């Protein structure tokens, strides 16, 4: 089942690989900024996936320009909608993460999460 | 067999009196104490003798639970033992009035002395195994104060050891008792056994084990190897009268127990020729030899006598385990004789200690000059114990050997008598030196320093009586023998 299908749906394949990369970054990186980058990679990968799903070769965006054609003419608009929403969400999340990072950096002058927690232990808070 | 309450009096009267004596307050004069005790002893003795000469009576007191009555009965064996107990107890009691003056807390001694007397009577007259067991345990518990009377560290340890061994035995008996209860339709003593043939069918092996346990349990009290350990420790520690009754009578409690188990619960036929009999015979013979050997090697006077008790009681056991009428007669005879003899010996030893404070045999050189009467009694008793005709010991041993010889118990029929003879020689070896050294101190003994240390009448009389009994019964034994062989006949 691998072989040709995989090659045909290379977009999805790439998306999933990217997701993996992002996920592992978010999970494993010590540096907060890198974590956040990983997060974004992960989300973008998902949007790529959605877009791949949404696009059907040889059709146009569902925007009526020259009279209404039949449904077959257009691609499925829902994934696009999803992507948009997703982007909004991810942006807001990223914003929060960044703000948190800034706070931490101001406090501890480092972006290394482990080191921060070590410091906390020292503070004995 | 007729019910009668009279049986309870000799049992509970002394117990009650003893308790009163213990809880009551110290009397003004010492004399009062001894009078009181003496009175009680005599009264009880009278009652017991009344029962002994009277015909067989029984009395059921109440039921412990289910089918367990507390039940008394005066039967032939009981009569014999009760008689022996009474004689010994009274005489030793009178001896002790004088003796205890030296000891502290005489009141406690006499209190327990009376109580144990009652209990022993109860033991002899108890009519079923539960009652017997009950009094057996009480005997242990209440005779313990007699052992540790002097309250030295040694005495207390001796008391504990005594208790430990006795309870070991008692519980072995109890263990067996449960099973007997299961396989017998009653626990009431009946000649030739109570086992219910239908129930026992197929369970003989189990029952043999059970019987073995029960015999072993009682033989602890009788000081049989390997459970003799407590006896040479406990008896010497007690004051002389106490050790006299301990050695003379209380060990016989074990003997009585064994008689009850063999002839009244299981029946001789059930055990005859089984591995149980063999084992027991071996053990008893070992004990006979070992006991006299140890006695021979022992230097302490009372301890030596204690060892001799070990061996002598095993004579009795040997006779019992032969499961033969003649040897049984022999055993019963020996029960009676040994009681008197050993009691007499201990009293003599006590008298010596009381007067001279000498406890070791080798100190006794020339003692015969100092207290001739005592030593004469001692000599007579020794002769009786050794079994030199016409003294009593001879008769019993004769019966034992005769019984042994015409039983079918393979090797024992000749091995037994041999060992008995050897041990008789040893007995001579460990008893006679006292007399000889006592009367013939030898050249270098200076008669100038000699002072008469004869004890007072109150002590002499019991000794003389006992010695006389030990000797006379040997000369005119017919009546006694007739009685006992009749009993033996009933049982087999």
């Amino acid at each position: 089942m691998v072989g040709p299908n995989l090659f045909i749906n290379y977009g999805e394949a790439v998306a999933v690989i990217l997701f993996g990369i992002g996920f592992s970054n978010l999970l494993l990186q010590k540096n907060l900024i890198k974590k956040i980058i990983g997060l974004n990679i992960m989300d973008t990968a998902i949007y790529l996936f959605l877009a791949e799903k949404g696009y059907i070769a040889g059709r146009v965006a569902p925007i009526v320009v020259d009279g209404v054609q039949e449904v077959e003419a257009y691609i499925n608009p829902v994934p696009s909608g999803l992507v948009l929403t997703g982007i909004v969400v991810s942006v807001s999340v990223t914003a929060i993460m960044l703000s948190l990072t800034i706070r931490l950096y101001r406090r501890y002058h480092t972006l290394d999460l482990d080191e921060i927690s070590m410091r906390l232990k020292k503070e004995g808070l | 067999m007729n019910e009668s309450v009279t049986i309870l009096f000799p049992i509970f009267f002394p117990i009650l009196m003893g308790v009163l004596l213990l809880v009551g307050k110290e009397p003004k004069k010492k004399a009062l104490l001894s009078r009181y005790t003496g009175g009680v002893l005599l009264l009880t003795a009278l009652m017991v003798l009344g029962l002994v000469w009277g015909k067989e009576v029984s009395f059921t007191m109440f039921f412990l639970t289910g089918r367990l009555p507390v039940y008394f009965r005066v039967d032939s064996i009981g009569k014999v033992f009760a008689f022996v107990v009474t004689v010994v107890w009274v005489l030793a009691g009178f001896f002790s009035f004088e003796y205890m003056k030296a000891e502290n807390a005489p009141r406690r001694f006499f209190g327990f002395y009376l109580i144990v007397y009652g209990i022993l009577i109860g033991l002899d007259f108890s009519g079923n195994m539960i009652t017997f067991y009950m009094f057996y345990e009480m005997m242990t518990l209440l005779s313990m104060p007699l052992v540790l009377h002097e309250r030295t560290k040694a005495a207390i340890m001796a008391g504990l050891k005594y208790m430990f061994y006795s309870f070991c035995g008692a519980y072995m008996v109890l263990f067996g008792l449960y099973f007997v209860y299961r396989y017998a339709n009653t626990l009431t003593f009946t000649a030739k056994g109570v086992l219910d043939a239908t129930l026992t069918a197929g369970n003989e092996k189990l029952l043999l084990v059970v019987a073995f346990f029960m015999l072993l349990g009682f033989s602890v009290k009788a000081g049989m190897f390997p459970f003799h350990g407590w006896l040479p420790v406990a008896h010497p520690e007690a004051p002389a009268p106490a050790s006299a009754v301990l050695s003379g009578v209380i060990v016989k409690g074990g003997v009585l127990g064994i008689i009850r188990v063999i002839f009244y619960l299981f029946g001789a036929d059930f055990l005859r020729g089984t591995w149980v009999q063999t084992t027991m015979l071996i053990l008893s013979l070992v004990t006979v030899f070992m006991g006299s050997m140890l006695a021979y090697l022992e230097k302490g006077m009372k301890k030596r006598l204690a060892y001799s008790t070990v061996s002598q009681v095993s004579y009795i056991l040997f006779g019992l385990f032969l499961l033969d009428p003649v040897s049984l007669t022999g055993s019963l005879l020996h029960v009676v004789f040994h009681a008197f003899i050993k009691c007499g010996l201990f009293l003599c030893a006590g008298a010596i200690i009381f007067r001279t404070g000498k406890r070791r045999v080798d100190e006794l050189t020339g003692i015969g000059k100092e207290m001739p009467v005592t030593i004469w009694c001692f000599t007579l008793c020794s002769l009786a114990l050794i079994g030199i005709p016409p003294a009593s010991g001879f008769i019993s041993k004769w019966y034992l050997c005769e019984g042994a010889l015409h039983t079918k118990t393979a090797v024992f029929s000749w091995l037994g008598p041999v060992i008995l003879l050897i041990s008789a020689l040893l007995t001579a070896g460990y008893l006679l030196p006292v007399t000889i050294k006592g009367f013939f101190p030898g050249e270098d003994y200076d008669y100038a320093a000699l002072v008469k240390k004869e004890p007072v009448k109150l002590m002499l009389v019991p000794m003389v009586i006992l010695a006389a009994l030990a000797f006379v019964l040997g000369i005119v034994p017919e009546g006694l023998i007739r009685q006992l062989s009749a009993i033996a006949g009933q049982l087999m």
Partner: protein
Amino acid sequence: MMLLAAILIPIVGGALVMVLPFKKRAHMAVYLEIVVVITSLLVGLIISEGTTGRFPIVKFVNNLSLSLELDGCGMVFAGLVSALWPLAMLYSFEYMKKEKHEKVFFMFYTMTYGITLGIAFAEDMLTMYFFYELLTLVTVPLVLHTLSREAILASRKYLYYSLGGAAFAFIGLVFLMIYGTTVDFTYGGVLTPETLGDKTNTLLLIYVIAFMGFGVKAAICPFNSWLPQAGVAPTPVTALLHAVAVVKAGAFAIIRLTYYSFGTDFLIGTWAQYVVMGVVMFTIVYGCSRALKETHIKRRLAYSTISNLSYILFGVTIMTPLGLAGALTHLVFHAVMKICSFFCAGAIMYQTEKHYVHELDGLGRKMPAVFGVFTVSSLALMGVPGLCGFISKWNLANAAVMSGNVMACFGIGALLISALLTAIYMLSIVIRAFFPPEDFDMESVKEYRDPNWMMLFPLFLFVAAMIIFGLHSAPIVQFFTDISNGVL
């Protein structure tokens, strides 16, 4: 209804102690004594009326309910408790004089009474489990009472052990709910072949687990170490709870589990029976030998309790009606003997502040009453004929022999060995007390006296009970036999 009342009176009455303003200590004493006595009378009344019907209190999750009912076993346990509690109260008033914040103590002490009755009256497994847990919780403050370091440790241990045990017993409960026809206690068990199916072995395993679970309170080896530690509690607690109420509750629960829930027909002859019997036999010997080594009086008694509890369980594990009868007999008789000896120990401590065996030399001369009673109770514990201990031992051994179960016969051996050890560790105390070494100077103990009547009265009552049960036990044993045959 009356059952509920009997349970609630002491609980409420106990709780009220905290709020009621007492002018003098005596008032509180009188008040509490009244509460307890009323309860006992009520219980007596109930018992005299015989078995009652089912009385549901609250509905629990899916058609389980808390409900009360009085049957034979319940009668025994309830009767026992209600007989002992007033006396213990009387005793503790005197004893607690020297202790601190006794209001709290008496509150919980009284409440425990109610809870224990609850266990006795419980009609089904769930109800019993409910009261069982409560019992643990209510008794913890009593163990904690002195608030000393070891008291804290002891109470912790007590909690962990009891709750843990309950957790395992709980499994049994749930299995009964699923596989039993009902969780109500029914003589002969609630398991039926069709419900079982192929689950037999699983259920046996579960039985063992539940047995161990309840066994924790009954202090079977290896779950017994909490009991001696809990001895730091004031003596009335040790005596009444850790010799009677709590530990007996464990044994009682096991009786319920074995005879009224799983059913002996299902268990007898299975590997489960041999496992539990083996454990119990081991505990019998183990407890005694530990008692022998122990020199602290109360702990020594506690160990002896451990082994004696296992006598009861031994009777249970024989799994014949006779066995149950024996178990019940020992349940009652041991309660009397042990509470008596504990009270003696308490009296000694109270009067002389002596806690160790080797300190007792010659006290017997000065406190004849206490030590006399102690002697009697020790003889009873040894099982000397004529005292109650002998009867229960006899019934147990008899049941063992009758059952024809080989292992049970070895069990008798265990009983007797432990009896021997009991003789040693109890009588060694007695001998010390009455026959001190000759060089011992009586001056050192001259100021000690017997305690006052509040302490002595219960003791003498117990002695009387021991002797009466010992000499004339036929009726009560008959009663037990009826119960164990499922008549009551």
